[in-house]
């Protein structure tokens, strides 16, 4: 079988050469073939002179278009939608814009670009209505601040008025989760606690720890436990503070200004029921003492008197114990427990979170902008590339189909 694009066999090539000679009017051409050429040429249809003249005029005029065509009516939507050439780029742009908006809106995508202040607040639901007989309720909130320098001062007005840090000054106000006073009623008792992690530079651990102690004492609190481990070029400190609950938020604000806040967690527990229970038990014991004293006044025999005195001794011990328990519960409400962890880090000074916006920051931000823009472009490409491939395949298919239909049209004229 002859390959599709192989040269014609020698006979065909010879005949084709003969044909070319006859068409060229060469004297050596086959007379029979030359006659055929002449006869076919004689049968050649010629255009009308009028048609040629008209076409000449149009060619000379450059195939003018009619300007008097009335302006087109606006096409209905179902006609416009049949024009993918118009709609496809628009749809692609809209899709890319939507993706860009989604990417920019993603929390992780812009975490280093702009302000990331967050103020969390948690209301103590149990402190209002539901604590009652159930023995109290608790709530907690936490935050991990990555760039506290961007926190708007107005976001935490109560916490922004702190003394400058002994370490030189992170003049930052991190976003602190705040827990509002637990109840509107003044007789409710709430136990509050907080865990604060400060991450100063390694050399500043001791200074920051001293600042923590100083701020605690200034607020009327005390250091319940402290553990400081310093080493060459760094160290850690762990402190447990007891501060008046009423001043907890202010103390946290001041402590947060000592260094970069790595994490902050607050919790509160409604202990009203526990307090009331302890008070009731103390009142019961006192009522019992009064009853015993009345019984002692009415006693007539030595045996009764001795028995009542013994019971009064027991009652006295009971009252003392219950009074101690009540005081302990009240102390839990009056003094909040704050756990402070100071961890020295080797972060570069430019990333402390404070200071002015430097060219280095600008370079960093510009890099991030380019990074995000590149990501958006990549996503857009990932979306548009398959569409482009599909469009190209559709175009090729349409082209092939049109060509096939044209060839079919010629065959059907037979």
């Amino acid at each position, binding site marked *: 079988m002859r390959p*599709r*694009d*192989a*040269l*014609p066999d020698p006979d*065909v*090539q010879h*005949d*084709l050469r003969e*044909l070319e000679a006859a*068409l060229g009017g060469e004297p050596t051409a086959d007379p*029979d*073939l030359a*006659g*055929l*050429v002449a*006869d*076919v*040429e*004689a*049968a*050649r*249809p*010629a*255009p*009308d002179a009028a*048609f*040629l003249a*008209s*076409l000449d005029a*149009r*060619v*000379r*005029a*450059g*195939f*003018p*278009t*009619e*300007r*008097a065509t009335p302006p087109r009516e606006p096409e209905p939507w179902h006609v416009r939608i049949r024009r993918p050439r118009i709609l496809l780029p628009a749809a692609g742009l809209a899709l890319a814009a939507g993706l860009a908006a989604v990417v920019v809106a993603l929390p992780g995508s812009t975490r280093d670009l702009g302000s990331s202040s967050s103020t969390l607040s948690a209301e103590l639901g149990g402190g209002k209505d539901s604590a009652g007989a159930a023995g109290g309720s608790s709530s907690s909130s936490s935050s991990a601040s990555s760039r506290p320098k961007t926190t708007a001062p107005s976001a935490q007005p109560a916490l922004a008025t702190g003394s400058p840090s002994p370490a030189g000054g992170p003049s930052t106000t991190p976003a602190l989760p705040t827990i509002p006073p637990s109840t509107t009623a003044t007789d409710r008792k709430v136990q509050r606690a907080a865990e604060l992690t400060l991450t100063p530079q390694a050399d500043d651990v001791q200074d920051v720890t001293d600042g923590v102690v100083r701020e605690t004492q200034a607020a009327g609190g005390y250091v319940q436990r402290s553990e400081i481990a310093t080493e060459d070029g760094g160290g850690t400190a762990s402190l447990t503070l007891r501060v008046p609950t009423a001043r907890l938020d202010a103390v946290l604000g001041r402590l947060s200004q000592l260094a970069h806040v790595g994490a902050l967690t607050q919790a509160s527990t409604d202990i009203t029921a526990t307090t009331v229970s302890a008070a009731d038990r103390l009142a019961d014991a006192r009522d019992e003492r009064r009853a015993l004293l009345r019984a002692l006044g009415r006693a007539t025999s030595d045996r009764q008197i001795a028995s009542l005195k013994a019971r009064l001794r027991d009652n006295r011990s009971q009252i003392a114990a219950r009074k101690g328990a009540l005081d302990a519960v009240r102390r839990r409400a009056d003094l909040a427990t704050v756990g402070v962890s100071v961890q020295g880090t080797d972060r570069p000074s430019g990333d402390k979170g404070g200071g002015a916006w430097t060219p280095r920051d600008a370079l960093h931000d510009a890099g991030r902008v380019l990074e995000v823009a590149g990501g958006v472009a990549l996503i857009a490409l990932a979306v548009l590339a398959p569409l482009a491939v599909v469009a190209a395949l559709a175009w090729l298919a349409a082209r092939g189909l049109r*060509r096939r*239909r*044209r*060839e079919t*049209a*010629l*065959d*059907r*004229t*037979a």
Partner: protein
Amino acid sequence: MELSTSEPTTARFDALYRETASDVFAYVLTLLRDRAAAEDVTAAAFERAYRRQRSFDAGRGTQRAWIFGIARNAALDELRRRRRTATLLADPEDASAAGRGDHDDDALRRAAVRVALAHLDPRERELIALKFHAGLSNAEIAKVLGVSESNAGTRVHRAVTRLRKACHAPS
């Protein structure tokens, strides 16, 4: 009606038009076998070529092959359109062929050629038109038809052979 010229006629296009107008018309009429439609299609093909002058790529073939390719597409589109609207029941007589000495031998022979052409397959008739009327080389015909040059040569040879047989066949 006010007319406006979109752009001036280029010298190259004008030369191409002068050189090929009659050939293109003959080729289109061979395909359509309808003089009026052939005139419309020929005009449309040249207008299309005029508007697409910048799309011509000399590396992909000659200007003649390019204009005949455009004319072929326009003619086939016209055939498709006519098939959707009406069927051509009979070929109209070529008025220009009438009254050319019906009694001499040449006239008889040429009449036999016209009959033979009419009985050829449309694709063979197209090849005869491209080869004899338009004077295209096999390479140019290959470009017009979208086939290889050797394939075009083979087809031309086959069409000429069929035509010669048809001319010598007893009527």
